């Protein structure tokens, strides 16, 4: 049954694209015509020691890709497909895979490891392939080190693929024993030790029971700590990765080891190679993460709401940890400010210091201040930069009371440094620190203002001056201005920025025109800062914002006129268009928010729309997204008048809804459909056939990213609200979709946090759809059309109530749906509601909720239900 596939696989890697495409086509055909033979042939190829490594490796990868996919639906499809294969075929494939683990070719072995893990991921939860773990464990005792290495690697992948509860504790123990033994210093073979250390990283999630047992935990911790001292840098790095993971997974078990861990991590931070030192710092960062979370749960008072108590490791380690981190700040790289992806000791150390400050609050200030004072005036730029960075890092966490006096003293110094310091790194960090000052210590909620009438002008002058500095410095100066403006967002009718508004806007526009504005993301920073300045402005400057509309339109127009661009230039133009559309979005939102300015804006509506349509015509995904957002804002501002743009705009709306690949574009477009529904109300009806068709297609597509589905459901609600009973003709399509999605999202058992969050957003979308439909049909003679759907909807509400895992948002929407159902169906729903298992309990729970929005919806629902059941 197996066929020779070597040549096709080799051709599929050919440099000649025609050959390659042809081969890929052949593979696809083979797969479609005879899947069992195809998969078997691949496994035979992978196992065959006679074959070239390249074709074996690709055979393994193709096989792996036939078992798993990123998209949830496709993954599910693949799993079902594998499970339905003939048992004997599967046995042959699995035998080939296991056999490959003994191959002398490392690539073949490693690929086989991954495929085995994928198969295990499918079969073990079904209680199939029960002998797998046993046979792998017996391999561990094989003499040839390469077999042992491959086997342990397989166990590692297996732990990554399979949920802990799928494997018996007995087998977990054996896996952990094998892995930890492989890490042991007694293990002579370096590859085996490395594979074991990496495997442990994945297996840690299985070790709950073992970490609860003092002896076993001691043993694992000892082996991990020993591995951090291995002569092999890769092993040390992998061991620290394990330690980081232990730090977050088993925080509450760390107390006995924390002193030792501190000792080894300090040594690593000070003396080890960078990749190792970075992981050692990461350990402390992740401990900060844990303690910040726990203290957050405490919620200020110490009534310990958290499941895990805080051990205050960071507070205890503070006297030694802070100096250690401060030392790292002096290890800057020359060009780190120009390199966006840079990550080095100084950056990791500063980041960790920032987390420490958030963890311990005021306590961070005393140990850091001497370092700042000592270094900030030194001749060596590294010292000045490190001192400034340290200051900037600790601005979030400590109380304003503690920081404000210091900042008041430092502010003048900072402003001088930003203008006068000869070193651009120092200026960069200084501007960033100013931004942090404004972000955390400036704003309407701060009691003692940092910015006063006395210093406001100087601050702005310095920042605007710095925008002419090197791109990285100018970018940070924009950032500082961004937070400066943000702090005034709730300032009231008069803003201290008003006198400078025009100058600020002009300076920012000048920045966007700089030749080098493409460096250090300067142009983006300038436009986004402009946006924030506009967003936070007051009526006083509305006239200037109206003028800005014309400026931005002119800029956008220019980008559309440019012709014959190189691909590089085109990319730049595209990015610029995106920024300009973003800017328009903010301006439209701002001016649209109050009546007098809205009228000033609306005189440009036609022109804006024209430009946006031309931007769409450029067909670039990112621009589409920003332009779509502007459209949404414009629709809201123009209201019913948006109808006149629909004939021209509609095709782009449809294109956006069809954009599966750039799913963010699709998501934004779905949102804009909602905006348009609210703007046009029943005038949107003429476009609904097309829109609904597209949305339904989106929902049934396996390609579309799952995150777009909840907003699509909400969008059904928007449409139904707008067109009312005219939604009738879509009921027969939309309702089954909603129903099956509701069934899928009713239960979350065994899902992780991320999945639960997604499920809740899906539920919310479904419920918003139901609400919109009920409200849309309310008072129509056609409400009886909805009656057949009511039992299922009530059942859905029952099941999510019983599941007890909905978040507040879902709860509010759900109780609203119950009310809408009662309100719209009236007495027709009375009996159903009475019969429903939990609607009364659910209602009572919502009525006594602390969340006033839930309570409000519930009170309303109670009225509606009482009316429905009293008739």
């Amino acid at each position, binding site marked *: 049954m197996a066929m020779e596939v070597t040549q096709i696989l080799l051709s599929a890697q050919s440099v000649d694209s025609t050959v390659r495409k042809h081969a890929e086509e052949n593979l696809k055909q083979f797969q479609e015509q005879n899947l069992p033979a195809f998969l078997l042939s691949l496994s035979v190829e992978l196992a065959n020691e006679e074959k070239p490594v390249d074709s074996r490796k690709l055979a393994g990868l193709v096989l792996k890709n036939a078992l798993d996919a990123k998209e949830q639906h496709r993954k599910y499809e693949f799993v079902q497909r594998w499970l339905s294969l003939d048992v004997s075929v599967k046995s042959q494939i699995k035998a080939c895979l296991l056999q490959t683990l003994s191959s002398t070719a490392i690539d073949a072995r490693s690929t086989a490891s991954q495929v085995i893990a994928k198969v295990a991921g499918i079969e073990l939860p079904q209680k199939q392939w029960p002998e797998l773990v046993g046979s792998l464990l017996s391999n561990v005792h094989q003499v040839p080190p390469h077999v042992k290495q491959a086997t342990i690697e397989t166990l590692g992948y297996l732990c990554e693929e399979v949920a802990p509860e799928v494997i018996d504790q007995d087998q977990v123990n054996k896996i952990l024993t094998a892995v930890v033994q492989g890490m042991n210093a007694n293990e002579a073979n370096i590859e085996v030790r490395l594979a074991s250390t990496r495997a442990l990283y994945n297996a840690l999630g299985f070790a709950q029971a073992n970490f609860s047992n003092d002896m076993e935990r001691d043993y694992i911790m000892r082996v991990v700590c020993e591995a951090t001292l291995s002569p092999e840098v890769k092993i040390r790095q992998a061991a620290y990765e394990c330690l980081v993971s232990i730090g977050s997974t088993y925080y509450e078990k760390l107390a006995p080891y924390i002193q030792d861990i501190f000792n080894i991590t300090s040594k690593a931070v000070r003396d080890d190679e960078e990749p190792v030192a970075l992981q050692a710092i*990461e350990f402390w960062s992740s401990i900060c993460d844990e303690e910040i979370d726990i203290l957050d749960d405490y919620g200020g008072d110490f009534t310990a709401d958290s499941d895990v108590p805080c051990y205050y490791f960071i507070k205890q380690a503070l006297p030694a940890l802070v100096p250690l981190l401060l030392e790292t700040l002096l290890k800057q790289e020359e060009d780190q400010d120009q390199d966006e992806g840079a990550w080095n000791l100084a950056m990791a150390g500063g980041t960790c210091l920032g987390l420490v400050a958030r963890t311990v609050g005021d306590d961070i200030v005393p140990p850091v201040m001497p370092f700042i004072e000592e270094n900030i005036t030194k001749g060596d730029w590294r010292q000045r930069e490190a001192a400034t960075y340290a200051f900037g890092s600790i601005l979030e966490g400590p109380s304003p009371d503690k920081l404000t006096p210091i900042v008041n003293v430092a502010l003048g110094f900072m402003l001088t440094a930003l203008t006068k310091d000869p070193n651009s790194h120092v200026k960069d960090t200084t501007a960033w620190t100013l931004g942090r000052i404004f972000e955390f210590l400036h704003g309407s909620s701060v009691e003692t203002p940092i910015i006063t009438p006395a210093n406001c002008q100087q601050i702005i002058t310095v920042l605007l001056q710095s925008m002419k500095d090197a791109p990285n410095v100018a970018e940070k100066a924009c950032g500082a201005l961004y937070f400066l403006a943000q702090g005034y967002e709730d300032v009231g009718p008069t803003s201290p920025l008003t006198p400078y508004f025009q100058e600020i806007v002009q300076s920012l526009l000048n920045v966007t025109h700089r030749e080098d504005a493409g460096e250090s993301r300067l142009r983006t920073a300038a436009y986004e800062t402009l946006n924030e300045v506009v967003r936070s402005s007051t009526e006083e400057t509305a006239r200037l914002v109206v003028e800005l509309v014309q400026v931005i339109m002119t800029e956008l127009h220019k980008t559309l006129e440019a012709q014959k661009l190189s691909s590089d230039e085109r990319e730049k133009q595209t990015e610029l268009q995106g920024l300009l559309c973003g800017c328009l979005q903010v301006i439209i939102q701002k001016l649209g928010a109050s009546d007098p300015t809205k009228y000033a804006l609306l005189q440009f509506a036609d022109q804006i729309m024209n430009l946006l349509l031309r931007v769409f015509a450029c067909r670039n995904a990112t621009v589409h997204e920003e332009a779509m957002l502007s459209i949404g804002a414009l629709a809201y501002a123009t209201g019913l008048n948006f109808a006149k743009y629909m004939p021209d705009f509609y095709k782009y709306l449809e294109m956006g809804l069809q954009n599966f690949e750039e799913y963010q574009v699709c998501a934004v477009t779905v949102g804009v459909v909602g905006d348009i529904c609210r703007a046009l109300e029943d005038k949107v009806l003429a476009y609904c056939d097309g829109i609904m068709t597209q949305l339904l297609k989106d929902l049934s597509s396996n390609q579309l990213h799952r995150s777009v589905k909840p907003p699509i459901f909400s969008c059904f609600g928007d449409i139904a609200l707008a067109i009312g009973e005219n939604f009738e003709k879509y009921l027969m399509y939309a309702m089954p979709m909603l129903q099956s999605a509701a069934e899928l999202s009713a239960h979350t058992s065994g899902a992780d946090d991320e999945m639960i969050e997604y499920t809740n957003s899906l539920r919310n979308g479904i419920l918003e759809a139901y609400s919109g439909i009920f409200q849309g049909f309310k*008072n129509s003679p056609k409400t009886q059309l909805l009656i057949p759907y009511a039992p299922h909807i009530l059942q859905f509400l029952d099941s999510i109530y019983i599941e007890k895992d909905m978040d507040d948002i879902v709860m509010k929407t759900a109780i609203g749906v119950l009310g809408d159902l009662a309100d719209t169906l009236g007495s027709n729903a009375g009996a159903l509601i009475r019969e429903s298992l939990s609607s009364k309990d659910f209602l009572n729970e919502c009525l006594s909720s602390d969340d006033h929005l839930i309570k409000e919806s519930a009170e309303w629902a109670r009225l509606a239900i009482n009316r429905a059941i009293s008739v």
Partner: protein
Amino acid sequence: MADENSTPHKRGPLKSSVGSAAVQRRRDHAVTVRKERREALMRTKRLCRVGVSSDDADVPVDADMATDEEQSVLEDQTVKSMEELNLAIAYQGKGAMQKRVNALRELRRLLSKSEYPPVEAALKAGAMPTLVQCLSFGSPDEQLLETAWCLTNIAAGKPEETKALLPALPLLIAHMGEKSSLPVAEQCAWALGNVAGEGEELRDVLLSQGALQPLARMMLPNKGSTVRTAAWALSNLIKGHAKAATELIRIDGVLDAILRHLKRGDEELATEVAWVVVYLTALSNVATSMLAKSDLLQILVDRLASSNSLELLIPVLRSLGNLVAGDSYVTDNVLVAGNEVTVRVIQVMIKCLSSEHRVLKKESAWALSNVAAGSVEHKKLIHSSGAVSILIRLLSTSPFDIRKEVAYVLGNLCVAPSESGRPVLIVDHLVSLVGGGCLSGFADLVRSADIEAARLGLQFLELVLRGMPNGEGPKLVEAEDGIEAMERFQFHENEELRSMANQLVDKYFGEDYGLDA
């Protein structure tokens, strides 16, 4: 972990550029704004409905679902929430807007909570100046909405509490402007409707402050709940005010909108619009004549034929009656014999006459009497329809006020107007009605203490006495104890009736009576 060289996720640096975070924040903001708008829309829709329906039917609250709160607790909470609101208004810091909205929402919640909302406590705590302040121009929609809602509930209170709204009226009217969002405008309309419903004095204030125009404009779009609220408020506003009614119908588009909503709107909407039509046709000749020339009659008839909702049928029927009574164009040009609509009018009248509801019977009899007062053709049409037997039954079995209306119809069927002024008798109608047994009903009317009814009875007896062929009249009247009934008037204080009765008795039952028998 699949890749050999991978390291676990790299933490984002503390020192990062502002751009990417700002872009994300901006997009998130757009999504948040959108969610808030959706939410606001849904919430408004819900709350308006609760209000509308709790207007017409007090919702019996299921005892175990209700959380009864002592009135005094509610009042304390109200005073406290007013304090919160004032604090929120004084506060200018971060999230000030949200604070204000939350405080308003709490106040509104308290004011919506019980059957006896703590309006007095709120007013004592200074609610009105504060709420007026919250209505200032440029305030966010959510704030306006909550404020207007609070005011709606206050206006629903006792008369002096409604009057307390006086300082808020100009702003409420202003927020119904074209630039306002629909939910805000609708809520303001609702509040104003409550105010207008209070009485003439407040109606005059509202009219002088220009409430009519914006409310009328809200009738124009096809937005069910908004139009319903606007129509309801308008009918309260023009009640008893002929000038306002004329002004309303003359506003561009109003006539079309009324016809459109009445034709296509759901029953609740049609009901409110029909009440507007009732007042228009009752108060304003201009309006009546404009409406008469439209296809209103057809629409009213369709509604009467298709609906079973009492709430809707009453104003529709009354409008129809007003239309027929008020403008000769209708009877002369529309309701002519042979027109399909004429047949249908009579059909729907029969439907209403046969209904269980007193009001429907009375309204339809009244409307029918106006048709019956028309030409001989009209009379023939009614006479030959199934209405007659129902009318005769009603004349003897229904409550007094209906009997009176029915008597008008039956009486009108028997006489036709003539040049000379004295009505001409239609003998065959008279004969068949008397044959159908209507005489005892009229004789009963003669005995009524109600002058008008008595006159109707007497007039009919006169027709019988005079018109029945072969001089059968007197005998028939006598058989129904008609003589005794007439003799009651011998010393009646009403001179007209007295002399009419005396003449009849003298003329038909004088000394010669019975001799030739």
